[in-house]
């Protein structure tokens, strides 16, 4: 907390993950902050057209926010915009569904409120920026974010050695429940047998090797996306709602 701030007041950078109506004119804003993890806070009067908040607390907006510590929910007192990612997502339906899936993933991977999640925050800001700047295929951007966010949460998939016995790869089997690539001895029933290229794309996305990912063919990307989606759904209890609406490219 800064020196000149009154007790109970704090300031942080954040991405708006979700908004929910509250009462007549308020909203509960779920934020993923740089220093305080996931925070839920009330924006009073935000639904009135005269609100000082304007569009600053729309989903996917990157903000500099000042909050007042509350008993259950904090109160948002001031907001400045850093990046208007959401405003740029709205113009393209495919990016909108992809961005929504990122926000939901970030929310679901922060189980506890106020548990610091700096790495996830940085991953999310980077992914939203890449999405609106259209640097890569939007689906690849989502897959890269999902894989890295999962790895950050302790669920990094094996993409070479066998996830079970550690035998060095490459192996031709991939088991979502088994934790990634598996050897033919360890492979559980129902393991998929993706192409070697699809595994290469997953590995590239995980380490940020965009040259390899961007050069992949669309059939291979679809395969990699399918594996990522299945892996993500497996690790998030109840699955991800937004993923159903992501259009298959």
């Amino acid at each position: 907390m800064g020196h000149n701030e009154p007790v109970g007041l704090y300031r942080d950078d954040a991405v708006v993950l979700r908004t929910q109506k509250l009462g007549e004119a308020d909203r509960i804003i779920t934020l993923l902050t740089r220093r305080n993890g996931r925070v839920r806070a009330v924006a009073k009067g935000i639904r009135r057209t005269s609100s000082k908040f304007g569009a600053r607390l729309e989903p996917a907006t990157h903000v500099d926010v000042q909050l007042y510590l509350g008993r259950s929910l904090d109160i948002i007192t001031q907001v400045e915009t850093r990046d208007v990612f959401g405003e740029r997502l709205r113009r393209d339906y495919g990016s909108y569904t992809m961005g929504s899936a990122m926000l939901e993933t970030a929310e679901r991977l922060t189980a506890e409120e106020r548990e610091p999640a700096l790495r996830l925050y940085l991953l999310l800001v980077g992914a939203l920026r890449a999405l609106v700047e259209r640097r890569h295929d939007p689906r690849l951007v989502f897959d890269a974010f999902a894989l890295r966010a999962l790895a950050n949460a302790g669920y990094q998939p094996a993409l070479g050695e066998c996830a079970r016995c550690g035998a060095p790869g490459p192996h031709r089997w991939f088991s979502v429940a088994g934790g990634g690539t598996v050897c033919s001895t360890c492979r559980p029933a129902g393991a998929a047998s993706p192409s070697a290229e699809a595994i290469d794309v997953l590995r590239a996305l995980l380490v940020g090797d965009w040259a390899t990912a961007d050069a992949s063919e669309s059939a291979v990307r679809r395969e990699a996306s399918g594996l990522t989606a299945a892996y993500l759904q497996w690790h998030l209890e109840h699955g991800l709602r937004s993923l159903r609406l992501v259009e298959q490219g």
Partner: protein
Amino acid sequence: MYEGVVQDLIDELGKLPGIGPKSAQRIAFHLLGVDADQVRRLAEVLLQVKERVRFCTVCGNVAEADRCRICTDPRRDASVLCVVEEPKDVIAIERTREFHGRYHVLGGAISPIDGIGPEDLRIRELLQRLADGAVKELIIATDPNLEGEATATYLARIVAPLGVRVTRLASGLPVGGDLEYADEVTLGRALEGRRALDV
């Protein structure tokens, strides 16, 4: 905790949107204080609303018959259709007295994070209404927030092949405010939707 039926009343009132436990208690004791006739009228209206009011089979607005008052009014312009999220948005636009076309109520906006997709809204019904070519202009009046905007983008895209003119309600600066307080999105949209001044 109160006893029996008083507590039941407080519990039921507390289930209503925007009514917390304190308000529920206050309303309950207000009802205990007023005369029986007034309470009976309230109870009757509540039951009648459930029995009589349904949703218009054409536009999805609230109606007391198969079709609503606006859909059956021959003076309304059938060539202009205004798409809104909720019946209460119909009321808001009707209050302006500026719109003389008809409506289509979607029943919400596309919100992937809440699990609401296009097939959960009355979009198929909208496409059916547009099929005969009678509608020349579709005004999309969904909320000016991310979900509403993305829904507008989606509708514009799927309606494009039908050759209907698609317009969006202008959004921009709130009337009566100071420019310096506008956020960048609002100001950006106001620039996007600027118009020539007639002199």
